[in-house]
């Protein structure tokens, strides 16, 4: 059924991710781990065309963009790079679900996960047109739409160790930039984190109410950019200690 479930009740479970743009280093471990898990799980197969050739193409459920942000004062401080993982945001009111003509695209009432039923999807691709985030990728060989399942086949999987019952991307992140939890519960660690760090929605203007949240990059510490500002003439002068004079002499000798 592509009509949305009523999720307005307080305390409604809303499972999702929180992504820390301050910590992400853009290593793509979450994306490769996602592809690896999902090509054998719920979304299997995640087929690639020309996988070892010059023009590989296939669905990935998680993509890591990198943006350069130039502040008005970036002449002095330099611009900064923000790595930006992007996957399905499991919106509260997703248009990708309501446009689906077959009911294959649906939002689970119990935890808010948005899924595609690979057995009833007709591959019309309209859901991908309805998603402003570009989160759905069509599988040309399988003929159906693929998307992030929030690793629905891991998080409830009692065959896995308890610490592995979280999405593959979260498990793989080496810097701890990804968090998984219930964003419908204001007391949950992820909700607390969002409140504390000022987590934000992507494109709130479109009105789809994404569940996943992004934590903004922290302001720069002044000393982090000090090195770039220092010209040769402004180099700190050395004190006149014996050791400094020795190194200074060694530097002159070695520079000859």
């Amino acid at each position: 059924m592509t009509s949305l479930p009523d999720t307005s009740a307080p305390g409604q479970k809303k499972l999702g991710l929180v992504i820390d743009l301050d910590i992400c280093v853009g290593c793509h471990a979450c994306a490769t781990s996602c592809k690896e898990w999902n090509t054998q799980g719920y979304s299997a197969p995640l087929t690639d065309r020309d996988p070892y050739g010059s023009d590989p193409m296939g669905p990935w459920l998680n993509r890591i963009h990198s943006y350069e942000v130039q502040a008005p004062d970036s002449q002095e401080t330099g611009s900064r790079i923000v790595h930006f993982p992007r996957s399905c945001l499991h919106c509260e009111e997703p248009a990708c679900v309501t446009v689906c003509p077959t009911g294959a695209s649906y939002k689970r009432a119990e935890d808010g996960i948005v899924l595609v039923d690979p057995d009833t999807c007709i591959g019309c691709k309209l859901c991908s047109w309805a998603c402003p985030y570009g989160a759905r990728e069509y599988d040309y060989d399988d003929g159906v739409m693929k998307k992030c399942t929030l690793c629905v086949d891991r998080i409830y999987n009692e065959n896995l160790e308890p610490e592995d019952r979280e999405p593959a991307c979260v498990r793989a992140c080496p810097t701890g930039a990804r968090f998984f939890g219930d964003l419908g519960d204001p007391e949950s660690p992820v909700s607390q984190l969002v409140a504390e760090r000022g987590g934000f929605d992507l494109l709130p203007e479109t009105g789809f109410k994404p569940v996943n949240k992004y934590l903004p990059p922290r302001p720069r510490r002044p000393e982090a950019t000090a090195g770039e500002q220092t010209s040769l003439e402004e180099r700190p002068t050395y004190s006149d200690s014996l050791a400094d004079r020795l190194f200074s002499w060694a530097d002159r000798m070695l520079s000859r």
Partner: protein
Amino acid sequence: MRPAYSVIIFTAASGAGYGLLVWLALTALFHGPAANRWFAASGMLLALTLVTAGLLSSTFHLGRPERAWRAFSQWRSSWLSREGVFSIAAYPATILFGALWLQLMPWTAILFPAALLTIVLCTVTVYCTAKIYSSLPTIPQWRDPFVDIGYLVLSLATGAALLAFLAALFGLNAPVIGRLAAASLIAGAICKLVYWRRIDAAPRRYTIEQATGLGSLGSVRQWEPPHTGENFVMREMGYSIARKHSTRLRSHVLAAFPMAAATILAATLVTGTLAVALGIVAVICAGLGVLIERWLFFAEARHLSMLYYGAPAA
């Protein structure tokens, strides 16, 4: 957006077919049972063939066409599903109307209601097609009332061009058909002109800063894409057309519809083979016009997701 040929052929062919059905049903409303049964039978057959060919073409867009029947289930929320339901519902109504109009069935009393029902179902089906596109907030160029109006008017205009051709073919001396066809073709050209003016004037409301939520830190540009090759989203939503090509193709559309209108008006002044030849020219002009228009409709549409792939605004 990538213009898919199956969808272009579907919307153009079934649009013309439904438009022709509306005109045929209107003819029955005003004139009762068909006076010229060859004209009526050819019209019904041509319209149903176009509608069916269009609907079949649309299944070529599907990854799993064998499951297409499932698309009739979600009419509560999905315009695509509604379109499927109405397109199928239009068949029995149309066939009943055709049988009554051709007097293959005796109950002439229900000819009027059957014709009215045919008009309603055909119009609603075309409206549903338009709504599939105009209901998507992710494509600002399609969030325009002239999308719906354009689909409806061009459906009637291309249907009218076919009707005028059939009138010439069967030697119906009915200049009113030619005038209606010419007027609807001109109306189609005006709709497209207004639509293009509107989308050109509309400000680009979304920026890469909004999409990434990083605008408070400064201006944003793509530094490195997620991968070196292309993916589905870039291929499907990232299709773009050079401004100069779009300008030229628009002028082709704006020339094709008035040319079809003029040819149809000329055909009403002559009879015989010349009138039929002019009718064919008019149908070709209108058909090419609507195919180019449909191609542009997709090619000029910009999808919000491209902001993440470096588009500065959408």
